[in-house]
Every structure is written in C-alpha cells, then in structure tokens.
C-alpha cells in the first residue's frame, strides 16, 4: 500500500489548478488555462484509477486533527475514506469531469472569462472529491458547501449576460435581461440549497447527540450495538433526507434545478446532471447503516423519489428549451435513484447513478453542441432535421436517448430494471409510478429526439458539425452509455452481478427473492414501457403534433410549483415585509418626533460642550472637589 498515491492527491490536484488559475490567470494566455485544468483533473483520474485497481480493504488516511472531541475517543481528523462506494464516485467524478473539461476547452473557447471558468470547474471537482471521500459528516459538509458554492458561481457564470459588450443596443438589452435571470437562477439555487443544508446540519447535530461521534466508519460500527431511541434515528435520517433533497433537487426543493440551466452547458452536464446533484443519493447510500435502522425514514426517501420522478417526467413533457427538457429529465432520474436507495436497493440506486452520469452528461454535451451549432438557439421548436448537418452528434444522441429510454443492451435498461425490480418487491404503488415514469421518460426523450434531429429544419442559421475536441468526449461517453450496463448483468440473463458484488463489499446487499419468471415479466414490462413511449413520440412526430406536448400549460409551467411557491412563500413574505416596512417607517417618524422635541432642551446642554478643553477640565475639577469634599466632611463627621 505504501507505493500507492495518497488519497489527498485526489482533491489536492484540482484545488491546485483552481488556486493557480485564480491567482495567476495572466500566466495562461489563450486556452492554456483550460488545458492545465483538464490536466489536473486527468491526473486526479489517474490517481483514482490506480487506487481503484489496487483496492483491498477500505482505506482510511487521516491528514491532521481537526475538531477536538468530535469522535468517540479521539479528535475528529481531516481524513479520507476510500471504500467501494467512494472509489466508484471518485472514478465518476474525475472521469466524467475530465471528459467535460476537455469538451469545455472547445465549448467555452470564445468566452472572455475562459480561464476563470476552468478555475471554477476545478474548484468544483476538488470539492466534490472532498464530499465523496470524506471520512466524517463534518468534512463531507465542507465539500457539500463547496460544491454548492461552485454551483452558484457557475450557474451565475454569465451574470452580466453573454453580450454585455455588444455594440447593438437590442442585443445588449437582451443580454441585460439574460443577466438578471442568470443571477436570479444562481441565487435561487443557493437559497434552496441552504434549506437543505439546514437539514444536513440538524442531522449531524442529532447524530452527535445520539452516538457521540460523527466519523463515518466509527458511526457504522457504533449504530449496531447502541441503545438509542428509534425516533431519534428516524429523525436524524429525515434531517439528512432534507439535506439530500435540497442538494439533489427533489420535491419539494426541486425548483432550483431546472433554473440552474442558466449556466453554461458543460456546467449543466457536470454539476447538474452527472455529479453534484447525485450527492443526495450518495449521502443516503453512505448513511445506509442508519437508513437500514430507520424503515419509516427510508419509506419517506422512496416516496420523495417516486413523486419527484413523476413530477419531473410530467414537467418535461411540454418544455420547449432543449436544456430544460434534459433538466426535468434529470430531476426525474434522480427521483429514480432516491426511490432505489429508499427501498434499501443501494446497489441499484448507485448503479443508476453511474449510468445516468454517462448518458445524461452525454445528452447535455450533445445539446451543448447543438446550441453551439445553432448560435445559441435553445428552442427545440426552431430546430429539426439536424441529423443531416451533424451526423456524429446525432449518432451519439441516439445512444443517449436509447440509454435513458431503457432499451435493452443500453445501460439505462439494466439500471432502471434493477430499480423497478426492487420497487416491485417492496411496494406496488411505487412500482407502478416507476413504470409510468419509464413510459413518460421514453416519450419526452423521443419528443426531444424527433424535434431536434428529425423532420425539417425550422431555424435560420447554418448549423455546422462539432469540432474534433468536442467529438472525443461525446464519443467516449456514448460508448460508456451503451456499454456500462454490462457491468451488472442480472443472474436471470446469465450475468454475474459484477457491480452488485463490488458495491456489496461496502454496502450489504439485500437478497433478491423474486422468481425468475416474474423477473422476466418485469423486464418485458419495462422494455415495453420504453418502446411504447418512443413509439408514441414517433407517431406524434408523424402527425407533426410534437411541438406542444401533452398536458399543455400545466407541464410547461412545471405543474405550477414555482407559481405555488411564489404565492405561498414569496407573496406572504413580501406582504409581511411591506407591513413591517410601514410599521418601521411609522416607528421612525414617532422616534424622530420625540427626538425633535428633545433637541430643544438638549440644545441648552450643548452650550456646555463648548469644545474648550479647559471648560471640560473645570467641570471635572468641580466634580472631583465635590466628591473629595464629601469624603472629607464624612471623615470629620465620623472622627468627631
């Protein structure tokens, strides 16, 4: 083990990149800053691969003592914990992160803040690695907040609009409007995340109160034998769920995630699809030893996930922004993962996390290539027929759509199937929701595909194929999205559950008890849902009725959740603020009146404040003389 690169290298390398690019941006003219950042993440990926290949028992490497008395018999230290789960997450983050960095060099090539963009991306990767490698909840929270910060910075990356310097007044006005909505989206994400963070912190406090330690390995050993109130564990798990819900954009804190698409597309791919938003899933999987003891909280997790999956799918049906469709799809897929981990099917959830990271990053990057090709056009109604102009991007998009729709041999099929099987085993309503969502998913992704790639071109610009640097990540991700499913072929298909076995070394698995025949049936249902969804989209496409999806305005406004929050939370807040403002002004006026009345007699005393030092000194002398005189008189009196 001695010859292995240390774990702290993983977050340190991108952090170094961030520091250098942030402090000395002038040293990196042109695109060199982007290459440096990409190199740093690539180096971290190599470290992650080496550690993965040489993985034995979980490795625990502590760096230095941090919080005194926060662990059972010692001080809580800053340390990293590498087991199968965190190794997998580190691989996803550095691997997908590397590809997206590479993609960004081309995608952000013309941006004036190119170097800063890569500094932020590197910062994000470093914080995300701290999050997944942390050996304790407080350290995880550091990464948790760090990725939130990076997310805020990157959503609001175009905080003054993309064309704030444009000569054309009209373009500049549009850019200013965009600037406001971008900044608001960033703030919204930040504030929504704060709600979740409060839950995370309350969860940590409660865990410390219950078990007296926040170190994850210690806690895992401790929970088995500890005698604590069942309600305490349930409550701690619910608090952690609030944290996970905030970070992963689940109901009811989901509204920030679609708005987060205001950021550059690589950011949407990396942060708001592949890695950061899955932190909530990771948190639940990491705390599996707690959720195993808290059946009620786990049910909550599952239902939050199920409902969010449904919500996301319904909202995605009639969106017209190429990225918004994918964003709601992300919400929906994250719901699937929550559904899985809530049902204690951690392996299925994490497996879906893995495949989703591939195919959703792929779809986002393809969408980015399309947006680029059409000169920042994001409205799918103004696209169409692009497969003629961009054959390569079209091909990889097909792979992504098939993967997310759950068509056999593509990765989404295996992971979604595992989740649905787990759902069927434990809760029929959740299974039906999952199946329905699978159908809806296939439909809206079909709609996305046909609107963008098929039919006649409805736009004005001249689309062009992406450049080579863009094609490399797209190709790699397409291959992964296609093949990753074979990591975990279920037994009834002749596979060996390789992935389940691997994760099973970190998280104990729940044995499958479903008969093979039932399992075949479930698989057929799932595939049928995907095929029917795609077929439905195809038929609608033939009728030319795709531009407006089903559910009309209800879906377009994402079930009016934003409006609901506006009316239920924001409007009363504004009313209260207005009322308080009136009260405040009234109070001010009253106080001013009192002050004005008092200033009359007060003016007399200003005569005393003449500014002459001697006048003050005389006052002092008289006071001193009075006190000492009184003392003297008293002494005489008592002496006599």
């Amino acid at each position, binding site marked *: 083990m001695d010859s292995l690169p240390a774990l702290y290298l993983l977050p340190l390398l991108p952090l170094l990149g961030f520091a250098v690019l942030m402090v000395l941006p002038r040293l990196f003219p042109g695109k060199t800053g982007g290459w440096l950042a990409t190199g740093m993440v690539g180096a971290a990926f190599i470290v992650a691969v080496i550690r993965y290949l040489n993985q034995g028992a979980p490795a625990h490497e502590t760096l230095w003592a941090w919080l005194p008395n926060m662990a059972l018999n010692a001080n809580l230290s800053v340390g990293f914990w590498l087991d199968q789960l965190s190794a997998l997450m580190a691989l996803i983050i550095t691997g997908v992160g590397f590809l997206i960095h590479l993609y960004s060099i081309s995608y952000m090539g013309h941006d004036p803040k190119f170097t800063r963009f890569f500094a932020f991306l590197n910062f994000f990767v470093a914080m995300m690695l701290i999050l997944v490698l942390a050996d304790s909840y407080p350290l995880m929270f550091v990464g948790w907040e760090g990725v939130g910060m990076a997310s805020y910075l990157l959503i609001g990356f175009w905080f003054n609009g993309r064309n704030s310097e444009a000569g054309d007044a009209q373009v500049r006005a549009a850019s200013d409007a965009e600037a406001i909505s971008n900044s608001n989206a960033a703030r919204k994400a930040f504030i929504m995340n704060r709600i979740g963070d409060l839950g995370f912190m309350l969860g940590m406090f409660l865990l410390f109160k219950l078990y007296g330690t926040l170190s994850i390995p210690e806690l895992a050993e401790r929970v088995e034998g500890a005698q604590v109130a069942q309600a305490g564990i349930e409550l701690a798990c619910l608090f952690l769920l609030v944290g996970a819900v905030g970070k992963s954009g689940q109901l009811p804190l989901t509204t920030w995630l679609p708005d987060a698409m205001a950021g550059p597309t690589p950011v949407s791919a990396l942060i708001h699809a592949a890695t950061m938003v899955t932190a909530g899933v990771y948190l639940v999987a990491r705390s599996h030893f707690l959720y195993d003891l808290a059946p009620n909280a786990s049910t909550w997790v599952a239902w939050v996930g199920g409902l969010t999956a449904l919500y996301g799918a319904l909202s995605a049906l009639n969106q017209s922004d190429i990225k918004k469709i994918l964003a709601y799809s992300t919400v929906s897929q994250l719901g699937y993962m929550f559904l899985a981990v809530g049902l204690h099917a951690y392996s299925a959830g994490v497996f879906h996390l893995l495949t989703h990271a591939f195919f959703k990053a792929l779809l986002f990057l393809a969408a980015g290539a399309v947006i680029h090709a059409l000169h920042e056009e994001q409205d799918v109604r103004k696209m169409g027929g692009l497969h003629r102009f961009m054959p390569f991007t079209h091909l990889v998009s097909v792979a992504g759509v098939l993967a997310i729709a759950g068509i056999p041999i593509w990765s989404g099929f295996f992971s979604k199937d595992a989740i649905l099987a787990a759902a069927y085993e434990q809760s029929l309503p959740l299974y039906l929701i999952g199946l329905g969502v699978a159908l809806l998913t296939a439909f809206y992704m079909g709609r996305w595909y046909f609107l963008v790639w098929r039919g006649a071109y409805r736009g004005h610009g001249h689309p062009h194929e992406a450049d080579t640097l863009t094609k490399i990540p797209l190709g790699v991700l397409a291959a992964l999205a296609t093949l990753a499913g074979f990591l975990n072929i279920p037994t009834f298909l002749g596979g060996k559950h390789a992935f389940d076995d691997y994760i099973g070394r970190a998280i104990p698995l729940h044995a499958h008890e479903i008969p093979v025949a039932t399992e075949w049936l479930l698989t057929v249902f799932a595939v049928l849902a995907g095929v029917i969804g795609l077929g439905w989209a195809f038929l609608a496409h033939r009728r030319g009725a795709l531009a407006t999806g089903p559910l009309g305005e209800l879906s377009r406004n994402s079930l009016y959740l934003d409006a609901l929050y506006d009316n239920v939370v924001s409007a009363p807040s504004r009313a209260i603020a207005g009322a308080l403002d009136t009260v405040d002004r009234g109070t001010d006026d009253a106080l001013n009146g009192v002050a004005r009345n008092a200033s009359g007699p007060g003016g007399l005393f200003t005569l005393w404040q003449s500014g002459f030092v001697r006048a003050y000194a*005389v006052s002092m002398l008289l006071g001193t003389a009075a006190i000492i005189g009184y003392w003297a008189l008293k002494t005489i009196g008592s002496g006599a």
Partner: protein
Amino acid sequence: MMLAFILLGALAIVGGVITIAAKNAVHASLGLVGTLLCVAGLFATLNASFLAATQVIVYAGAVMVLFLFVIMLLNANQPVTERDPVPYVRELAGIGGTLLAGAFVVLAFTFKDPRPLAEGAEALRGGSALVMGETLLTRFLLPFEAVSILLLVAIVGAVALVQRPAAQPDGVPDELEEPVGAPQEERRQVPRGAAPALMQTRGAQDGEVRA
C-alpha cells in the same frame, strides 16, 4: 527640622503661586524651578537623599531647561490677552481649587502613621542610591526596564513629531500643484527636481515666521 519644613513649604507655595499667576511665561517657569528646588529640599528632610539629588538634576535642571528653551523658541512668553471664551472659568477654578485644597488638608490630618516615624525613617537608611538601586534592580526590575523602553519610545516619538513631513499637499503653492486627473503624459513633464526645491522654499518661509 520643623523650621526647615515651614521655610521650604512656604517657599514652595510661593513658587507655585508665581507659577500659576505670573504674566510672563519665563517668570512662571522660574517660579516653578523654585518650587521644585524646595520640594527637593523637602525630599531631603524625608530621608530621600537620592531623590532629592535627582529632583534637582532632572527636574529643576533638565526638564526646566527644556521648558525655557521651548518658550524662547516659540516666542510664547507673553500671555494671551483676548477675552477668555470660557465664562467664569477663573472663579469656578478658584472655588473648586480651594475646596479641593481644603478637603485634602482635612483628609491629610486624619492620616495616622502605621508605625513610629523614627522607626520608619530608620528603615529607609537615608534613601541613598544604594537603597534605591537595590529596590529598583530586584523588586521593580520589570517596571524599571519598561520605563527604559518608554523613554526610548518617547525619544523616537519626539523626533517623529517635530520632523517636517516630506510632502505636505496643502503646503504646495497652487501654481505648482498637479491638476487632478491630468493625463499621464502631461504629468511626466513636471521636472523630477521640483519637489526638493519646493521643500527648500518652504523651509525658508518657516524660518521667517519663526524669526
């Protein structure tokens, strides 16, 4: 002994009155010198011979010379003659001061010696340099060193205070002052030697004022 006390005490009070009442600042400081010398004598009657010597050398000597020097330097030996802007300050100060003095005297006579005076005087061993040195360098070593640092700081501070600031913006004649926001090119045209020359003229002006 009593005679010496009465004589010295009366002289000290007379000196004090001269100090606060003399119109001419030089007379006032000479009155203070008298008081200081009388206090030195009183120290001697109190078995504090070393302090008496120090009082004469440091106070009546060095400090007062410094005062006289500054009075002469600033030509400030004439009293301010305008009307006093602070109303009734003399009266109030007189009343307050008298009250204070009376109270002090009353309190002084209630003081009771903690031990026979002769015994205390014996214990002081004449207040010689030996006794003082012993106390200063053993019990009060830290305050002693601290005071030495304080003196150093005072020297540096005094030098820094009277040092003429290198460039005083409001002292520069307007025609030589750079216009605010002038373009970089024009600014460079001001010759480099301008600033020292300015300072010299200023020095000459000050000299005139002082004379």
